């Protein structure tokens, strides 16, 4: 308050005491005179045919029903199998599996029941017999005989530990190698690690 009083006291201007009241009345009177009030009942000028909306609704419904296809559930496939096919299939599959091959190959038995070192030894035997699988899989080999002589069991172990071999295909190739080179092993026989090592010695002796 003291500050305001001080300020008032310092202002040198003075006005008529009714001036501000008259100013307010004058402004309001000018605004009211110039204002246009929008009437609430003014209509738009657009017109539509009286039947238009009834037809429009029908047209839209017709269009949506006609053009959008909804895939119903339960449509069956049209395929049929020839008569007697499934019996024939069973016979054919059993002929290729249970009635044809041993349930487990020699190599698979060795692979499953041995340490990585013995697995490597089995591969050495297979390579000695067939001489291509491992070398073809290894990019560093250029000549099978030279490269084979250079491989040590450690290398093979490392190779085997770092490869994800498809056992079925691999065993099949190796078993074929055994057979192709006259290593007739009865698939039903169990092979011990010692016997396997003897086979390797025999293979080397033959090669040399």
């Amino acid at each position, binding site marked *: 308050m003291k500050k305001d009083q001080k300020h008032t006291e310092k202002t040198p201007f003075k006005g008529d005491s009714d001036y501000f009241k008259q100013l307010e009345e004058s402004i309001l009177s000018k605004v009211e005179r110039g204002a246009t009030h929008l009437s609430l009942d003014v209509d738009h000028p657009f017109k539509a045919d009286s039947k238009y909306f009834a037809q429009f609704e029908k047209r839209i419904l017709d269009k949506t029903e006609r*053009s*959008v*296809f*909804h*895939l119903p*559930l339960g*449509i*069956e*496939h*049209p*395929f*049929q*199998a*020839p008569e007697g*096919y*499934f019996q024939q*299939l*069973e016979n*054919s*599959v*059993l002929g*290729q*599996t*249970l009635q044809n091959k041993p*349930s487990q190959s020699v190599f698979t038995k060795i692979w499953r029941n041995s340490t990585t070192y013995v697995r490597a030894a089995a591969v050495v035997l297979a390579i000695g017999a067939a001489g291509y699988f491992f070398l073809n899989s290894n990019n560093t080999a250029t000549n099978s005989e030279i490269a084979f002589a250079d491989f040590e069991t450690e290398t093979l172990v490392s190779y085997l530990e770092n490869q994800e071999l498809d056992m*079925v295909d691999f065993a099949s190739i190796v078993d074929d190698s055994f057979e192709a080179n006259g290593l007739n092993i009865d698939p039903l026989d169990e092979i011990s690690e010692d016997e396997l090592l003897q086979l390797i010695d025999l293979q080397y002796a033959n090669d040399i």
Partner: protein
Amino acid sequence: MAEEKDIIQLLEDEEKHPEAFRLILSTYKERLYFLIRKIVIDHDDTDDVLQEAFVKIWKNLDKFRGDSNLYTWLYRIATNEALTFLRRRKSQNNISMDENPELLRMLDSGGGKAQHISGDDIAIALQKAVLQLPEKQRLVFNLKYFEHLTYEEIAEITDTSIGGLKANYHAAKKKIEEIIELD
């Protein structure tokens, strides 16, 4: 028809694998036939792929782990065999993996190479529309619409996330509706 749990029990003992395989063959041969048939269309091709699939199942019985359903494991092998067959043939003929002109011709020819097809028009129209889908959408649509598998089961078979499968199925369904609508 054997129960899946009975077969799984036999699979736990390696000595009983032959018996388990016989039961798998007799129980699932028809389901796997029609699963493959919807992918390769032709009966003779289906027969080749199905026999290969069963041989592979036999050779890999010891790899089945009881942590997944047996039938999803079987479906996975059969599906992979069928897709590999198609990819190999398309690759030989320089055809994009997402196009199936030869399979469409088989369906069109009716009495031609793709024999043993019923005369149901809507069923054939649907198969022709499915053949126009990209490979992944086609596979997911077949497994969901015709085999009635859940997204969880399809995820096990196709190694795809459930979100991805839903997107594939809805895109496939929409595209099929558009194709049939245009025809």
